[in-house]
């Protein structure tokens, strides 16, 4: 069975995780705070609720309504899917290195590795690029769990090694054939966006094969998956992003952060255009982030680490429900 047995009505009041695991959670949080304190990274807190949301069509925000006293009508506020935009506003106002232990929310995400409400450890280091931040992420994780030395592979190397083709140069129409060759049969009808095949092959073929080896950072993604990362004008150009895979689990994700407000606005608009095509909900782009970028975001790299997954690795459990006091089904 994939997921744990559902609790019966009589026991649903009890925690999903054991006390041993809940104590481990607390200990890991304390060690994370000690790690950043020793490096003079400032702990910050930013709001969970925001007027703007994430435009990325693959991330769905939960929302709520706020009625302010004296206001004619209530307004929609979005629950953060990550604290990134608010933390960049702090960086632009001169914070220096900062980190946050943030509760984040993603609609529609639930499974062995997903709970719709979860904890991210997110931090930003001025004057770091994504390689320097990979070094720091590796030190942090090695401080918390028994982690062997991490491999580093570019996205292209990872695909060439584990999937047998060059993801940057392959013709889009061949991606479906590569997926089939790797035993990945995509159900449903019609043609799919090339990125869907790249995501399919990365998550179903490349990541599981990395599992057999050491933990691994994959970096320099296709520019079609740049998200909020800088694009480096190589041949081919790549997005300066990384992801850390441990035991086949995507544990952390980082960017050499995009700081150009014009490029950022263009990406927001492209996201909103894709949302319209997909029939995904419209969401207001974060103008305050764009204002902050216009004032100047220091060159920096940022990383978000899934704390619940880290606890899973530390505790040696297979289901995220086993590390949460109250997983969503009994929340």
């Amino acid at each position: 069975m994939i997921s744990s047995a559902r609790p019966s009505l009589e026991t649903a009041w009890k925690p999903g995780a054991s006390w041993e695991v809940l104590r481990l959670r607390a200990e890991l949080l304390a060690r994370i705070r000690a790690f950043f304190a020793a490096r003079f990274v400032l702990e910050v807190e930013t709001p969970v609720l925001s007027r703007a949301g994430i435009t990325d069509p693959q991330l769905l925000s939960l929302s709520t309504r706020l009625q302010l006293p004296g206001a004619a009508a209530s307004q929609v506020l979005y629950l953060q899917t990550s604290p990134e935009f608010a933390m960049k506003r702090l960086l632009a106002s001169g914070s220096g290195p900062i980190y946050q232990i943030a509760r984040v929310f993603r609609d529609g995400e639930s499974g062995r590795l997903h709970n719709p409400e979860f904890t991210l450890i997110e931090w930003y280091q001025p004057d770091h690029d994504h390689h320097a931040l990979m070094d720091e992420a590796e030190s942090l994780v090695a401080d918390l769990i028994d982690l062997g030395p991490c491999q580093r592979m570019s996205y292209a190397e990872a695909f060439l090694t584990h999937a047998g083709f060059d993801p940057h140069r392959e013709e889009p129409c061949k991606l479906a054939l590569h997926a089939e060759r790797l035993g990945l049969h995509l159900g449903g009808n019609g043609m799919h966006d090339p990125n869907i095949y790249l995501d399919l092959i990365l998550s179903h073929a490349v990541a599981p094969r990395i599992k057999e080896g050491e933990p691994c950072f994959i970096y320099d993604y296709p520019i079609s998956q740049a998200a909020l990362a800088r694009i480096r004008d190589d041949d081919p150009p790549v997005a300066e992003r990384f992801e850390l895979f441990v035991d086949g689990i995507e544990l952390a994700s980082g960017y050499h952060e995009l700081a150009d407000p014009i490029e950022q606005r263009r990406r927001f608009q492209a996201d909103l255009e894709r949302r319209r095509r997909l029939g995904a909900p419209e969401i207001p782009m974060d103008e305050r982030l764009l204002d902050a970028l216009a004032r100047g975001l220091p060159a920096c790299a940022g990383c978000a680490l899934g704390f619940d997954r880290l606890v899973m690795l530390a505790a040696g459990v297979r289901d995220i429900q086993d590390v949460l006091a109250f997983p969503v089904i009994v929340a």
Partner: protein
Amino acid sequence: MTTYNTNQFKTGLKVMLDGSPCAIVENEFVKPGKGQAFNRVKIRNLKTGRVIERTFKSGDTLEGADVVDREMQYLYSDGEYWHFMDAASFEQLSASETTMADARQWLKGQESCVVTLWNGEPLSVAPPNFVILEITETDPGIRGDTATGGTKPATLETGAVVKVPLFVEVHELIKIDTRTGAYVARAKE
């Protein structure tokens, strides 16, 4: 017919895939942090019993399959078909050798089975989890040998051949787990 989207996928759901009725055996939500969400599904073809793996993009749909399980009593076989009766309505239906598959080697009559119907036609038959059958042929027993853990083949009254402990004798009744085909214990009747 109902259609189900990936959000409604769960273990046991009966759906049509490539023109065959199937049951979802395992459903895992897989999503890269920044990327497309998928449902990785293990799915059993209810005609062939084969389990295959398919991945669906979130939001994809499958048509539901009109598959129901019905508890029915096994009556007899005419050699070509195996006949079953609904003990409440007395309605009868018959299943072919292909439909019966392994189930037939455990049935002698009167057993309560689960007959799976697709659009009203038998698709598969599940015998009771445990059956008690007589041994019709086996090597002579080694009296008192309950310790060595050795086994020997034994033919049962239905024709099935199972492995039994050395001390078991011909004409004895034994209890079999039909899911594994394993000997469980000697039985009184």
